[in-house]
């Protein structure tokens, strides 16, 4: 999996993709995950980071993570190898 490294993530939940000119809005967890991805963190590391910070169980985080990545793929913000 590769994240589109050109994207610009702003602190307040906006993402701009200069290759397509499209913009996206995210909630704070979405922004957080996207910046982890940009730092090349693995799925396990990301899930762990979230579990440490938030009041939530492992299964929910994993489920939401997988779903979130599917949307990122759909929006062409990440690509499969």
């Amino acid at each position, binding site marked *: 999996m590769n994240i589109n490294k050109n994207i610009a993530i702003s602190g307040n*939940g*906006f*993402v701009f993709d200069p290759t397509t000119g*499209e*913009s*996206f*809005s*995210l*909630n*704070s*967890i*979405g922004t*957080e*995950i*996207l910046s982890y991805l940009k730092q090349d963190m693995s799925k396990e590391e990301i899930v762990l980071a*979230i579990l440490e*910070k*938030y*009041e*939530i169980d492992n299964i*929910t*985080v994993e489920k*939401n*993570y997988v*779903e*979130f990545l*599917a*949307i*990122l793929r*759909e*929006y062409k913000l990440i690509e499969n190898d």
Partner: protein
Amino acid sequence: MKKLTYERPIINKINSGMPNKFGTRTEYQPITYIDEVSVKEIMKEHGSPVYVLSEKTIRDTYKDAKKAFTARYPKVQFAWSYKTNYLNAVCNIFHQEGSWAEVVSGFEYDKAIANGVSGNHIIFNGPDKSESDLETAIINNSLIHIDHYDELYMIISLAEKLEKKPKVAIRVNMDTGISPQWSRFGFNYESGEAWDALNRILINKNLELVGLHSHIGTYILTANAYNVAGTKLADLAVRVKEKYNHAIKYIDFGGGFASKNTLIGAYLPGTDTCPTFSEYAEAITTSIINSRIKLEDFPTIILETGRALIDDAGFILGTVLANKRLADGSKSMVINVGVNLLFTAFWYEHRITPAQNFSSHTEHTSVYGPLCMNIDVIRQTADLPVMRKGDDFVISRIGAYNMTQWMQFITLRPKIVIIDTGRQVHVIRKNEKNEDINSFEHVPDHLKKINV
């Protein structure tokens, strides 16, 4: 260190040049209290889903509507439209406020009598009045609004048989400039049918013509349509007076005022587009005041307002069952309230508000009920804050028709509670149990034994 509240990660594409009609952010707050009673507490005590009614809102709305009319006209009478919500507790709030009863079946008629409404304060409308219904209504001096000639002739023969003089009105349908025109009820004005029916009544010494009635439709967004209706009804009243020297006691404008709900597909929310009670009252009262009816003959204006008096007072509380992504990638949410409990979801874009805090982000979501049926759609699309499985929500403005047109289908119907003006919560209809439903059934002996 205390951990933060989690929320599912979301991302939405921003479509520039095509702004969402209500903006991209939710501008509303969670609903955690109704009339200062905690939503979560109600659900803990009475389950999920559960219907909640606010007695205060019912009374306040009624007083607003009444004031709009009495400020403009001396003689005004409301009659509660039973079909809109005929829970006895609800009917009795309206009766305590002074409303008569407006019923459209023997079942509703009997309910009004059992609630203690006196017979002469019951308006009996509709195309389905059986001979025995009419007999009871005649004996009780109820106000019978005739729908068609067959009914008129049945009343004439009953009057002879019972040696009573029934109090009657006719329902008039007409072109008021709006569509659809509800021409299937009553007698038509433009064709002369209404005038013909009035003549037949007035030449009959056994009938007393007391009123004229119309119900031009429902969710009428142009107040002026009522002015057109009033002008035509006043014309009939004037002609009756001229020809028979008989004054009509009342003109009944039926129901039809829009509640502040948003119709499916409407561009603007109902709160922005619906006329106010004052606008309706202005249209209606001027049609009588400016007519040729003489001051001493001014009729009472009767209103059978339904949805506009009760929608705001009703809520249904429920819980998110699941979040799903559909095959086309779009998001959907499954909740435990289906169209079986929220019939009005077929007409309205009901507002769904989380019952707990949420972030300012919204997602484009379809909202489905729990029934295993494709028609079970509560919102085709809605911009909703992120809600998780197990989160609770409040659907507002659902007081009209849902508690009468609901269906016992697949699931059992839940409790209905009312919050009184002293913040006490009362159950006014129990939740259904399997035994209740089974008690209607009978299994013949040869079908009792099964072997599977």
